Structure formats: structure tokens, C-alpha cells
């Protein structure tokens, strides 16, 4: 035990004397969360749209006014004919066209139903998706107000409420993702680098020749990073609560447990990487390419998994981050308990055991 404490002390010396790793450990999480929270956002502001109004009646005018009044859209063009829609897009300025059908008011009153076509420029699918969501939200709101005025019970309302993130605050969607990326980065990359560093320096050999057991070496190297990752997770959660006013609806205790599970999962990945790489640089490349990219691209952090092609959707299942993001969103935004996320938790536990088993096996082979 005394050996172990000495080992951990040494590990902390390494970390605190290396400015670069200190920066990655503590600067990155704060920088990233601020960056995603304030700068990178998929909220839309003042998007140029065009209007094609076939009815030109009171209702359409009112809807158009509502849309113009919102900060999300600015109407930059009025089109008269269907054929001009394409031309308007080709100019490149507008991102969407709202196309009101003929006799909009009459149809709405007579049939309880009128149609508005939202044509979006899907070269940027995320923005397109957001535009259509926002337009829908404005229409729904308008429908609610007129229904209230008329007080006719049989008005039909399509139900497309924006659940869980009604204000459409993108920072709420980013926090779980950023937390996942940072924990992955700190846990997997930093441990794999610190273990390969010992290999590169030749100190690993000295440690293996000493009476300290390989298992103790690995645990000793990993332990400080568990501790630091937990601190990071706490910092991220505090920042999101106090800076971004994000409510944590679920149990903080459960959130903590799930985070520790994911941290251990990432650490075992880090150990696995260190067993297959000889130099720090290799370890870093494998961590960045093999872990960070999938975590950012395939986990549902930035791009919704549902809109990926099927092969990628299948691949996304083997990425631990995907399950952790689902768990985080469930706890933070929906406030559900373990009974709703036990399946995802079990998957993470299984993956962790698998990675650990594999790295122990690899480690033994290497010792041969």
C-alpha cells in the first residue's frame, strides 16, 4: 500500500510539472464548454427567407408579420411565382421559402386545415432542420392564439411540441456532448500517453524488473486520472448550471455514478491503446483518430444519429460515447431515473469489462 501511495505521488508530480498536460486537463474543459456554449451554436439568427404568398389574405399576412417579427428570420424577398423559388435559392442568399397555398384563410376556416410549404436549402441539413422547426414553432404559437380567440373546440391542431428543450437552447444539447468529449480526452488520451511515456523513457522496463506488480503499475498510473476526470466532470456540471443556467432535472448522485462508469470505460480504452503503441506520438494519434473523431462525429453529439446513413447508424452502436450521451441527456434534460437508462448503463458496463479484459490480455502478451 505504501508503495502504491508513493507511486501515485510520483504520478501527480508528472502531471503538475508538465504545463501542457495541465492545460489539457484544466484549460480545455473550460475553453471547450465556453466555446460550445457561446460561439458554436446551431441556433439560427436573422436567417434570410423568401415568401411566396398565393392567397395574400389577412391570415397569411398575420403569419408573415409574426415571422418577420421574430429574431430568427428576416424576410428578404417576396416571390410571385413557383418558378421563381429555384431562382431565389440559386442567388444563394436565402435559406428557405415559405409557400402559402391559395385561399389560405378560407381553407383554414372552412376545412380547419390549410397548408404552408416550407422549402429549405438542405445543403446545410442542420440549419435546414432548425429553420423548419422554428417555423413550425411560430406557426403553432399563432394557431394557439387564433384558436383562443375564436374559441371553437373543433379546431385541429397538429401536435409538434418541442419537448425537453422548448426554448431550443442549443447549449443544453451541447453540454452532455462536451462533457463526454472532455472525459474521453482526459481519461483515454492522457492515460495512454502517460503509460507510453514510461515505455519510451525506459522507466517501464525498470518498473517491470522491480517487485512492483504490472497490475499495480497500471492502477497507479490510472488512479490520478480517475480523480482528475471526476473534478473535470464536476467543473463542467457547475459551469453549465451557473453560467448557462442549465437545469439538472435528474439525480446528481446517479449522474455522478454514470460519469464514473464512463470514466473507467475511457481509462480502459486508454490502457488498451497504450498496450498497442510504442511511442507517445502513436498513442496520441490513435487516441485522436480512433477515439476523438468517432466521439465527436458518430456519437450524436453534433450530428443526429437518426439522420446518418444506416451503416454509420450501426457503427455508432459500438461507440461508448453514444450511450453515455443518451444517459446524460436523459438524466440532465429529462430527469429520469435508472429504470429508464438501465439498458444503456448495462451496455457501458459490458463495454468496460470487454476493454479491460482485452487490455489485460494484451499486456500479458507484451510481457512475454
Amino acid at each position, binding site marked *: 500500500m*505504501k*508503495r502504491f501511495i*508513493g*507511486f501515485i*505521488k*510520483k504520478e501527480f*508530480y*508528472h502531471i503538475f*510539472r*508538465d504545463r501542457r498536460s495541465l492545460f489539457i486537463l484544466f484549460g480545455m474543459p473550460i475553453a471547450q464548454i465556453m466555446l460550445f456554449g457561446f460561439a458554436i451554436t446551431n441556433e439560427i439568427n436573422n436567417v434570410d427567407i423568401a415568401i411566396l404568398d398565393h392567397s395574400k389574405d389577412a391570415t397569411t399576412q398575420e403569419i408573415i408579420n409574426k415571422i418577420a417579427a421574430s429574431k430568427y428570420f428576416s424576410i428578404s424577398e417576396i416571390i410571385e411565382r413557383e418558378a421563381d423559388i429555384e431562382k431565389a435559392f440559386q442567388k444563394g442568399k436565402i435559406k428557405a421559402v415559405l409557400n402559402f397555398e391559395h385561399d389560405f384563410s378560407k381553407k383554414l376556416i372552412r376545412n380547419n386545415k390549410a397548408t404552408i410549404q416550407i422549402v429549405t436549402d438542405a445543403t446545410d441539413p442542420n440549419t435546414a432542420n432548425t429553420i423548419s422547426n422554428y417555423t413550425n414553432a411560430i406557426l403553432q404559437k399563432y394557431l394557439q392564439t387564433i384558436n383562443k380567440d375564436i374559441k371553437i373546440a373543433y379546431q385541429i391542431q397538429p401536435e409538434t411540441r418541442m419537448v425537453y428543450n422548448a426554448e431550443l437552447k442549443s447549449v443544453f444539447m451541447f453540454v452532455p456532448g462536451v462533457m463526454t468529449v472532455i472525459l474521453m480526452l482526459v481519461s483515454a488520451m492522457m492515460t495512454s500517453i502517460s503509460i507510453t511515456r514510461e515505455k519510451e*523513457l*525506459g*522507466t517501464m*522496463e*525498470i*518498473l*517491470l*524488473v*522491480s*517487485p*512492483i506488480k504490472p497490475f499495480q503499475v497500471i492502477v497507479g498510473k490510472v488512479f490520478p486520472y480517475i480523480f482528475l476526470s471526476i473534478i473535470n466532470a464536476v467543473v463542467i456540471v457547475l459551469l453549465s448550471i451557473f453560467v448557462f443556467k442549465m437545469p439538472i432535472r435528474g439525480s446528481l448522485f446517479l449522474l455522478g455514478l454514470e460519469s464514473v462508469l464512463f470514466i473507467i470505460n475511457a481509462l480502459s480504452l486508454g490502457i488498451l491503446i497504450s498496450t498497442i503503441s510504442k511511442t507517445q506520438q502513436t498513442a496520441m494519434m490513435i487516441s485522436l483518430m480512433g477515439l476523438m473523431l468517432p466521439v465527436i462525429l458518430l456519437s450524436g453529439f453534433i450530428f443526429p444519429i437518426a439522420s446518418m446513413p444506416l451503416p454509420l447508424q450501426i457503427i455508432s452502436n459500438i461507440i461508448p460515447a453514444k450511450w453515455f450521451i443518451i444517459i446524460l441527456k436523459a438524466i440532465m434534460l429529462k430527469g429520469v431515473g435508472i429504470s429508464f437508462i438501465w439498458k444503456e448503463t448495462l451496455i457501458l458496463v459490458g463495454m468496460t469489462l470487454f476493454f479491460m479484459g482485452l487490455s489485460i490480455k494484451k499486456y500479458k502478451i507484451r*510481457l*512475454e
Partner: protein
Amino acid sequence: MIKQNVIEATQLTKKFGNFTAVNAITFKVAKGEIFGFLGANGAGKTTAMKMLIGISNPTSGQANVAGFDVYKNAEDIKKNIGYMSQKFALYDDLTVKENITFFGGIYGLKRAVIKEKATVLIDELGLHDVANDLVGSLPLGWKQKLAFSVALLHNPKIIFLDEPTGGVDPITRRQFWELIYKTADNGTTVFVTTHYMDEAEYCDRVSIMVDGKIEALDTPKKLKEQFKVNSMNDVFLKLARG
């Protein structure tokens, strides 16, 4: 007086698939001896040494190191040997004192013992002024001596040195060999691999490995007589060229 053997290897063999890295080597090393383990790169020196220090299992054959069997008691061997590699592996970002404390700690030495030993060691090596400096800032020669002393902290019966003088200037090498002599005089066996043939002359006995086999084993003097040459360098060249 019968000399006590601290290393005994009999038909020790290591195979990687079809490749035989170490082919049935047999030798003995006596207590307090400086044993030179020579061979070209790829001759199997490192593999043989790894089996002796308990981090690689032999494919066949027997070996007994410091009184313990390499198959059954590898952990006991580890407690009784010291090891220093050609990288003088210490932690550059730890101070001289911290390195001593750490390595003393993983060998299970008590804190008071470590403290006492550290004082003696820093005194002997003349490292007073840099005791609290990071090891990374020390010149290579100092690092090498420090690494050697650290490997001896737990009073091992045998110290294994893997090309301990690589990349060090001749004067420092000479000084280092004085340390080795002193250690052997204290009764610690020194098992050393080297590339430098002039260093081979300093050893009590020398073995030369070629393609996994020990082709020659004797005192430097007798080897030179046997091959009718004037230096160990010529002995080595004759053997290596077949």
C-alpha cells in the same frame, strides 16, 4: 574456498515461433564476479538477460538467479537484483531526491532507510548542490551514476547492466567502471552487456554470443591466447565473422 554461484543457466532456450533467439546457453557466474555478456546486435543478449531478470519466461532449460528459480520464483528474483538499462531511466521531471525516494519506495524500503541512504548516496556522488534539481537538468554522466546508485539502493545480490555506457564520453566511462569495481569489491555480482571491446577487458570473465549461442566463455586473457590475438576486439571480430 569454493566460490558460490549466483547465476546458473543450463540449456536455457527462448524461441519466438520458429526463430530461436537464445539457443541452449549454459554458464555460471560466481559471487562478486564482473561478468561481461557480449554479442552483436540481435545475437540474443537482451533476450537472455530478460529471462534472467524474470520478465520473460524461457521456452526450455533451467536457470537459477540469486538462489531462485526463474520459472517458480521470478518475484523473489526481482527483489534480489538491480537493473539499469542503457537509457539510465530515471524520471526527468522528478528531482534527484524524489527519484531516490520513489525507487526506494517501490522496492519496499522503509522511509527512514531511504532517507539515510539518500544522504549517503548524494554525499558519495557529490550531488549536494543539485539534490533538489530536476534530473532532466543533469549532465548525462551524472544521470548514469545516479541511475546506477539507485539500482543498488536495495542492496541487490546481482546488478544487471544493459549497455550502461552507451553515449557517454571516455572519461565518464572510465569513472563509471571504477564504480563497478567498487560494487564488485563489496560482494555484489555485476552482469554487464556492452558494445565496447575495451570494456570487455575490464571484466573478470567474458562470454560472447553469436546467433543465440555462447561461442566463447573465459577470462579476457585466456580468450586472447585461445584465438591468438592481442585484443578482445580481435577476438570478437574472429568469432563474429565465423
